[in-house]
């Protein structure tokens, strides 16, 4: 059992928790993920590590309440326990040789982008961060990004805060103005990562995307998290849990990944409603 040491609501749909898991805290690096189960009968869900405190033995996770399991997790209080917490899984984000980086985060993806930005900042790289949200209510981690970025651009889709528009707008402006980066790292909805990749393509800047497909074991056993890379015109199957979650954006078949991500859409929506009703009934 793993204790929830601290819990904080970042916005009405996004929650941050610090979980006591000393072995994971000691090892986890930015870009890696964990898998958890809330209770004995629960499903396994992957969440990317949003930070660690090795001295305290805690791992920070940030999640959006989207389905039955995240609703159940969000119902847990500070001091309570979750059943299983395993990691760190996946390959850490590559930082070698990157002196100037642009981090592009969208929505709850910013929670994963933040430790990556912090890591580059710690390594002395020049960090530009572009973070986007649907509206002001959903904004998270602005202060944290400001602290680790040489330059920060905040965008909202509806213009309710900061600049109006999506994250590709300032990225394109920078690239068109002749700015270069050693790497663009983008983390967020698949559709956003696809368009960030397309925006960068004419300028030849390398793009790393962080994939978050449906997973079960997360250790390279079930193959559910497979995705297709197009390498030299050939379609190659990769597994996000052991080969990723970071991939070269130019190689990823985003449309396929988006389709696969919706496999259990109806099931998830039903589970979410059921869980919410159950939780309401309990109060």
């Amino acid at each position, binding site marked *: 059992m793993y204790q929830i040491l601290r819990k904080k609501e970042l916005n009405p749909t996004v929650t941050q928790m610090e979980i006591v898991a000393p072995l994971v805290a000691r090892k986890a690096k930015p870009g890696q993920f964990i898998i958890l189960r809330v209770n004995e*009968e629960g499903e396994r869900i992957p969440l990317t590590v949003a930070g660690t405190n090795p001295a305290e033995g805690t791992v920070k996770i940030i999640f959006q309440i989207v389905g039955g399991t995240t609703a159940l997790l969000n119902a847990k209080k500070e001091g309570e326990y979750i059943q299983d917490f395993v*990691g760190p899984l996946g390959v850490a984000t590559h930082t070698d040789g990157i002196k100037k980086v642009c981090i592009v985060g969208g929505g709850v993806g910013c929670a994963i982008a933040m430790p990556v930005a912090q890591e580059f900042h710690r390594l002395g790289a020049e960090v530009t961060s572009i973070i986007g949200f649907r509206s002001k209510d959903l904004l998270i981690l602005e202060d944290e990004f400001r602290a680790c970025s040489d330059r920060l651009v905040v965008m909202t889709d509806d213009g309710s805060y900061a600049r109006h528009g999506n994250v590709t707008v300032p990225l394109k402006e920078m690239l068109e103005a002749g700015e270069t980066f050693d790497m663009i790292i983008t983390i967020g909805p698949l559709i956003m990562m696809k368009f960030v990749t397309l925006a960068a393509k004419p300028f030849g800047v390398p793009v790393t995307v962080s994939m978050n497909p449906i997973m079960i074991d997360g250790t390279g056993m079930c193959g559910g998290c497979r995705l297709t890379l197009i390498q030299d015109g050939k379609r190659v199957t990769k597994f996000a849990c052991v080969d990723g979650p970071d991939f070269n954006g130019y190689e990823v078949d985003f449309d396929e990944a988006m389709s696969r991500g919706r496999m259990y859409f109806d099931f998830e929506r039903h589970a979410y409603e059921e869980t919410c009703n159950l939780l309401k009934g309990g109060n």
Partner: protein
Amino acid sequence: MAINPKKHEMPSQEPLVRAHNFNEVALGYTAEIAVEEAQRCLNCKNRPCVQGCPVNIAIPDFISKMKTGDFEGAYQIISQSSALPAVCGRVCPQESQCESKCTLGIKFEPVGIGRLERFAADWHNEHSTEAPKMPEPNGHKVAIVGAGPSGLTCAGDLARKGYKVSIFEALHTAGGVLVYGIPEFRLPKAIVAKEVEGLKALGVDVETNVVIGKTLTIDELFEDGYEAVFVGSGAGLPNFMNIPGESYKGVYSANEFLTRSNLMKAYKDDPVTPIMKGGKVAVVGGGNVAMDAARTALRLGAEHVYIVYRRSMEELPARKEEVEHAIEEGIDFRLLQNPVEVLGYNNPENPRDPKNGFVTGLRCIKMELGEPDAKGRRRPVPIPGSEFVLDVDTVVIAIGTSPNPLIKSTTKGLEVNSHGGIIVNEEGLTSRQGVYAGGDAVTGAATVISAMGAGKVAAKGIDEYLMGK
């Protein structure tokens, strides 16, 4: 008394009843049948059955006990050699091991050794209240990677010798393939849990949620005071066919399909982990895993389940008993057929159509058997122009696995072969001092009992290594 030429039939659930539930298919002998079956054993001098057993159970000795109704005595003899008797009695391919060597089998049907083993183990689990004797500690610590058949066996053998054994398991439950792969109707999970409890009673620690290679490395295990490590990390990533359409929704690897149903309990009525149920299902492959997947699909409510296999019934690698069970339950075997493409739904008018990207069919080609290959197996060759489409909603691919890369990539000096399997010598020792390995991590996908045999060999190797230190 004349010897009954046939072994006593295993009482089983009726095929058409069991095809709709997840309860165990085989119900087990009664005490009367067990004694009668035991009496068929000739207790011959040269004991060929013992050589046929990968863990060398003293088979005639335990059967002699059963002849007199001393089932606990029989269990005690089995448990000297096997850490998992109730499991082996159910899933071992006895027909190609102990029973294939049985002297009685020359003239008649062999003794039902597996069924007797199962009876003794179940009898013990039901009746015995005695706690096992804790072995005298010998002061040495050994780490086991993976709580599957090889790891549990290795742990059991070492614990009985007094070693302090810790098993590190990546998943949330111990058992490995016994819990994620083999379905409830063939091996109830309560039996696996009971066998694991038995090991814990011997002083074995089981740490779940630890991925060796990630959470801890093998080098760190040595730093933590473990003097030897056994790697039984099991099968790895599933193989796919590399044909178009394998990413459509509704295409599963057998590992994923079975893990969702078994480990994550998606077979229950209101599951928290989803799985596609109902419709028409094609399972590609002819091994035991393919049989398990097909029979699971049927029980999940499929209208029709096909097994698509590129060779003929004769080459089908699954156990005969499993194939017979599958046929009785109504699985449709499409032999000498091979998939060439998975078909999916695409509505060009509406890219947001929720049906887009779901499987609609499996295009296959008919095959014929050509010249024998290097192993003497006749190679299947496609018949030009014979393509056709099976109308299905779900495709499960059960064509094997490749070893997991996690340990190899984080352990310096651990040599692997061209298939990624860890290289070991006849004692189970790898290229690293003090590191032993066995099971699917070494051989690639194989049987539970061969993994157990490898765990046993390694336990002996580790004991000799640490005692000789």
